[in-house]
């Protein structure tokens, strides 16, 4: 079914990338980059998550159905966040 197979080397490289991203996140937090502090951290954390899901959890080599199931939880999480934000971002707070 899968022509491309996971190898020890691919896993180790994934780990290396994760560690590098981790220290990038850590380092960036100590620089004053304004709005980009949050953006960089958010982007890299999501990249880390995607790396783990694709490689460690082997979704990259899995059937399309698994992709859908893996994405479903995050999709519903977005619903929760977005619609709650529609309240809090438009509310008077004191």
């Amino acid at each position, binding site marked *: 079914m899968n022509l491309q197979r*996971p*190898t*020890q080397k691919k*896993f*180790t490289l*994934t*780990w290396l990338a*994760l*560690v590098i991203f*981790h220290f990038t*996140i*850590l380092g960036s*937090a*100590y*620089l*004053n980059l304004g709005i980009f*502090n949050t953006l960089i*951290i958010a982007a890299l*954390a999501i990249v*880390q*998550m995607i790396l*783990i*899901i694709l*490689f*460690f*959890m*082997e979704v990259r080599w*899995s*059937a399309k*159905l*698994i992709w859908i*199931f*893996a994405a*479903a*939880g*995050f999709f*519903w*999480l977005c619903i*929760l*966040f977005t619609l*709650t934000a529609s309240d*809090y*971002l438009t509310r008077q*707070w004191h």
Partner: protein
Amino acid sequence: MKMPEKNSNVAEQFEDAQQQSEAAHLGMWTFIATEVLFFGGLFLAYFVYRHFYFHEFVIGSKRTDVLFGTINSIILLTSSLTMALAVHAAKENYRRQISRWLLLTLLLGFSFLVVKGFEYHKDIHDQLVPGANFNPALPAQSQIFFWLYWTMTGLHAIHVCIGLGVMSVMTFLARRGKFSAVYRTPLELAGLYWHFVDIVWLFLFPLLYLVQRHS
């Protein structure tokens, strides 16, 4: 009604091992989706209060210990690697490597808890527990930050403990030669769970430890 001869690892309700393995994987992914939403409620609370009390969150976040946090991140990332390698060893039928990688994973998971324990000890000593004894030098709303810090890391730690329990069973089974290229579904499911716990931490770390560290 005679069932056709089947692999002893295939349960009665399934036609073959492939159907069983696909069903089990799909089931685990469904479970992970429920876990995403389970943690999601806490993350939502975090984002709401971070939005309203950003200043207090910055002050609170600076009281957390980045060193402990970083060590634990590396420990968990590495344990995810060893877990992936254990599953890989099973797939390639390197049967003796399986339990070695699993033991290493177990060890790393356990050290995560030990480090977290030291960190909690320090946090308590620094009066970072919300309530009557909360550090008076900090603004009141920082208590919300620390309430979330404790519940989020606590819930994560509970998941690590469950993971260690599962991993112990897997190690035991692996040592008895249960897993191979033919039969490895439970091992793969345990792996999926463990990686998920790792992912949660990768978000907890920047959200709790790194809110405007530079200021």
